[in-house]
Structures are given as C-alpha cells and as structure tokens.
C-alpha cells in the first residue's frame, strides 16, 4: 500500500470516528449504550430513539454533506480562478441566498403569507435557493460575455456586495425582532435538515460531486493557465460554465439548508493539497470531500458544548475552532 492510499484509509477511518462521535454527542443526557441501541434497534425510550434517529443522525449526515460540498466548491473556485483566497462565497451566491432569506423575513407577514405558509419551513430553503439562483444567473450572464476569469471573479464579488448591501437595507427597515430572526439564520445550523428535506440536499450535492469528477482533467489543465489549457484543446467557455454552475448550485443549496457556513470552503482545499502533496484533482478532489466532512463533523461536536446554556453558532465554530487547528498544522509543516 502506498502512502496516498494509507492517507485515504486514515481519512475514511477519521470520518467514521467523527461521524459516530457526533451522534454520541449532544445536550440531552444520553449514554453511548443508549445511543447505540437507539441507532440499531431501540433504546426502550421513544424520546431517546427520536433524538438519535431523527435529530442527531440527520444532523451528522448534513454536516458531512455540507462540509464536503463547501470544500468542493472552494476547490473548484480556487482552481478556476487560480486564486488561493477564492472560496464558495466569491461568486456572491451565499450573499444571494442571504438576500432571499432577508426578503422572505420582510414579506412573510404580508399579502403573500398564504403562499409562504403553504410551504412550511421549506419557504426559507426556497427563498435562499431563489436568491442564490438570481446571482448565479447574473454570473453566468457575464461569464458568457467575458473571456477573463479574474474579471468574472471581481464581478462575482461585486454582485455579492450588492446582495449584502440590499440585505442591509432590508434590515434597516425591519424591527429588532425580525432582525434577530434573520441574524439567527446567519449563525448557520446543521440541525434544520429533517429526513424529508435530506433527499433534496443530497441529490443536488451528489450531482455537483459527480459533475466535478467528470471535470477532473479539465480542472488539472486549468491549473496551468487558461491559455495553456486552451492550447490542449480544452473548451474553456464550456468548462468554465460548468464549473461555475456546479459550484454555485452546491453552495446555494447548502447555504439554503444550513445558513451560511464560512471558512471550511477556503481552507480545506489548501489543506488537502498540502497533506497529499499534489495538485492533481484525481487525488485532491476526494481528499477535499473527506476532509471537509471531517472538519464539519468536528465543528458540530464542538458547537454542542454548552456555553451559558447556548450552543455555539456553527458558522462561528468553523472559523474559531478550525483556524487554530489549521495554524497548528501549518506551523508543524512550515507551509500549507
């Protein structure tokens, strides 16, 4: 077994351990034995069964999907724009999702209420997807007209700023209670995805991952620069369109279901490249997915630590607890 295979095996083992630990950790006093029994048979207590099967299990799966998806999106953006600071949010898609949710907050008590209430809690997801899709369409519109990827990156950031500015305007019109409701969404939450919503999240992200796998060669060519990639016969425009579309769709979907989650998408691709010692997407892509899932699961475990009777917002935990971990590794290895 070579070194790389060993690393992958280790990552899979880590992922399994983190997944199990995430299911065993929470605020309800449930022992490991009870949790195990609830997972595979029954603990004898319907409440414990409910918490483990219908709360912790979907939450852990959501953490895995969200971590993998955001990291993949970050990897695609970094490769396409050849910019180490690029992340899932550079296209303004997350800000677009935020705009959708802010608009929903403003409109939910108005004449459109019957329509919104008929969707139940899916309304927030639909609003976020709508906002993200709007920004995506703008990006695709400009990318069809512009040759230079860096210009698209800058325009994406501009769209993001405009969406954020519109959110700020909406917030200035809202009363403090509505503000708090919106701010709570920006904290990010992995616990909002119920079993009935899971297939939708899974399907979008799985499609994104599948397309990304098919684009491995194109992504490797892009690492050498667009001119070189074009000289190898790569259709830059078509591949750029595909990369932007899947990155935006998976970021938009994850943001819609979990709220914005920062940090993971920017750092994990660097971490994967550094750990595996290669930039080849055939290796980096699966490593990014695995590492993203692991970090997200660890962050979810950390966010369960009650501080003043509150669990920590997962959006903050990713940076606050993830950053020292990464810095420590960088210091150990003297480089990223």
């Amino acid at each position, binding site marked *: 077994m070579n070194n790389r295979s060993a690393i992958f095996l280790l990552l899979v083992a880590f992922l399994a351990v983190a997944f199990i630990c995430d299911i065993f950790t929470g605020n309800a006093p449930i022992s490991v034995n009870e949790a195990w029994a609830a997972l595979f048979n029954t603990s004898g207590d319907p409440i414990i069964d409910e918490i483990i099967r219908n709360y912790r299990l979907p939450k852990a799966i959501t953490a895995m999907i969200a971590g993998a998806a955001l990291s993949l999106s970050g990897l695609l953006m970094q490769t396409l724009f050849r910019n180490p600071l690029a992340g899932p949010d550079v296209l303004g898609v997350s800000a677009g999702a935020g705009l959708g949710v802010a608009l929903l907050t403003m409109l939910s008590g108005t004449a459109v209420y019957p329509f919104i209430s008929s969707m139940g809690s899916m309304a927030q997801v639909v609003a976020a997807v709508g906002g993200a899709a709007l920004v995506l369409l703008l990006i695709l519109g400009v990318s069809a007209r512009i040759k230079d990827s860096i210009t698209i990156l800058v325009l994406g950031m501009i769209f993001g700023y405009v969406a954020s500015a519109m959110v700020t305007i909406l917030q200035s019109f*809202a009363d403090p*209670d*509505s503000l708090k409701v919106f701010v709570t969404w920006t904290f990010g939450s992995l616990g909002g995805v119920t079993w009935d919503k899971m297939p939708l999240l899974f399907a979008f992200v799985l499609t994104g991952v599948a397309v990304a796998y098919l684009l491995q060669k194109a992504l490797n060519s892009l690492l050498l620069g667009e001119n070189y990639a074009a000289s190898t016969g790569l259709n830059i425009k078509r591949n750029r369109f595909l990369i932007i579309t899947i990155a935006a769709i998976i970021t938009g979907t994850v943001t819609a279901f979990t709220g914005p989650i920062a940090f993971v998408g920017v750092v994990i691709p660097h971490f994967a490249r550094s750990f595996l010692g290669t930039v080849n997407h055939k290796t980096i892509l699966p490593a990014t997915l695995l590492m993203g899932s692991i970090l997200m699961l660890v962050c979810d475990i950390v966010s369960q630590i009650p501080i003043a009777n509150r669990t920590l917002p997962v959006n903050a935990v990713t940076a606050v607890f993830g950053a020292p971990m990464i810095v420590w590794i960088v210091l150990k290895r003297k480089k990223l």
Partner: protein
Amino acid sequence: MCLKVINPPPFLFVVFFSLLWWGCQSGKHGEKKNEGDGDYISSVSVLHAKGFQIDHAREYTKVTIHNPWTSDRKPYAVYYLYKTDAIALPPDGIKVKIPVTTLAVNTFSYFEFLTLLGEVDVIKAVTDGFRVYNPVILQKMETGEIIDLGDPFNPNVEKTMALNPQAIINSAYAQMDSYSERLIQAGFSVIYSLEWMENSPLARAEWIKLMAAFLDKEAMADTIFSGIEGKYLDLQEKVKEVPQKRSVMAGDNFQGTWYVPGGNSFNATLFRDAHLDYHYKNNKESGSIGLDIESILTQFGNVELWFGCEADTYGELAEKDAKYLLLQPVQKRQVFNNHNRTTPSGGNDFFESAIANPDLMLSDLIKAAYPSLLPHYSFTYIKPLEETPARE
C-alpha cells in the same frame, strides 16, 4: 417570522385591510356557536382578544388560535383538550390531555399568567434564563427544577425533547420555525403564542384565558381577568376627566434609528387609554416606525413626557448624545425608563408580568403624567431618570 416594516410600502395597506377585515370577523367571540358548530355547547367569553377562541363540547374543549396573517379564517392552530382517555375527538388538531402538568415556556409573557393562576410549578423549562426576573422561577432554576433551553429564537431541541414536557409554549411567527416543526414531527404539543400580535393591553392580558384552558382553570382565569379589566376600565374613566391631555414620546435610539410605536400598536393604545396625546395616534402601523434623530427633534422636540428611554440617568443621556438635551422632556426632567424592576443579569419584569397586568402599566403612565390622580400609587414598571452626572 414577524413582519413589522417601517414606513409603509403599498403592500402594508393590504395587510392592514386584511387585519381590519379579520378584526371585524372576530367580533363574534364569546357568542354561542353558529350553525355548523352544533357539537359545541358553550364558548368562553373573550371580550378583547382577537387571536383565540375557546369552545366547549360535552367531553372536550376546542381551542382555536386564529391566524392574524390571513383573511380566510383558516386557524393558525387547533387544540382538542380532554380530561379522560378513550374519548372520541375530531381527527384534526393537536390533542392535549388536561390539566397540563409540565410545560416548557419559551416566552416570558406567560410566566405571570401561570403565576396568577397559581401554576408556576408546571414550568419545567424556560429560554434565556439569565434574563428572567420572576424570583420563583430564578430560585427553581438554581435548584435545577427548571432548565434553560437557551436562545428563545433557537431553543435547544435535544434538551426540550429529553425533558419531555406535556406541551411547549413557543412564540409563533408568519413562518414555520424549524424548532416547532421538529417538535411537532416528534409528536410534542406546541402551543403557539400569538398574544404579541394583539394591539391592546386588555387583549393581551386576556390570553390568560387561553393558558387557563390548558390548566383546566377557566373559571379562575375569568375571575382574575374580570378584576384586571375592571381596574383598567376604572382608571381609563378616571383619567378622562383631566381637561388637558399631556403630550408624549416613546422609544429610543437604536444604532441611529429611533423606533417609535405605530399608531395602531400596543403602546399607542396604552397612551390613548392613559389620556395622552401621541404624534402618531392616527397612524395605522401596528409595529414600530423607524425615525432618524432629525424627525424625532422636529416631531417630538416639544412634547411633555418621554417613556421607554433606555438610559438610567440624565448624565448617561447627555453622554450618549448631546442632541438628547434638545428634547423638552429632557430639559424639564420628565423622562422615564422601564427599569424599575430589574435584575443585575438583565432580567426586567416589564417584559414579563406587565403583559398580564395592564392595569399596573396604565397606572404607571397616569402616575407619571397626572400624579394627582393616583397620590398613593408608586411606580411598578417605569422609573424616572435619576440626576447622576455624566462620567468624568
């Protein structure tokens, strides 16, 4: 999720007219049942609140929480309360066996309802425990009899489920929140609190009757509310005799925006009942109106009283912003905050028991504006600002 948008765009007029229509429709509360509801033998008399209705069948009670955001009379929630098992209940709605003995209460306004009904012991969980004022609840939190579920906008799902309360009282908004959705999916009974949508003090206080239905204490709630209502209406009559209304301003500056009550809001109704003149009395907004300091100075610069100031002293006001000194109530020392009953960790009884005691809220305003009418009364929730100078 609630919507209280500032400076009404056109759709707010639609909302307003919907609410108006809804209000007209709900004037039928307290009457005997209409045809089609023949199973119900009597109804609880609800005189002021528009948001709920309680009907009695022979073997169970139907509690309906109306939906304030639609005009089609489709209820927000329906509950069937029963005392003994093996009773045939209608297929819809949430079934709750009464009296409820364990409750998670995620909204502060219900603490006093439960206290007045002598049922504070049913509270097993609260949110934002550090902001609680009620001393009995604080003591029970110390002994561990009551647990803290964290942020009221995002309470801890696991802790709530592990506690396994018979029902959870949760603030309802125009959007389904994932906390309530999770609990309902798991088979828990969520009692939606929509009392905050009522825009008169007596209407809000009348929600004690809804709480009482779940505790099987309807008669007691009726007596308590009648007493409160009587005191409130007496005060309202008494203050009407004052020949000259005093003018008033409200709210405070929050990061550059001054939120003042809309003319159709709870506070504006309270000002009207306290015989006070308020600039936005004819405004139709039921939430807040966001104003800048210039509008405040021009519209309220010469009023006589200011309620709801966030500062504790005049020195603090001057230190925050010298423009406060341009307001006449500041110059004439007629400024009041809501900090008379607070705890060091941020608890404030104004946000707890005031909703259940509108007569005391009205007394506070009357005492501040027309002190000769209530010579022996001392402030319950409000407090005049003190004269402590600004920090050097």
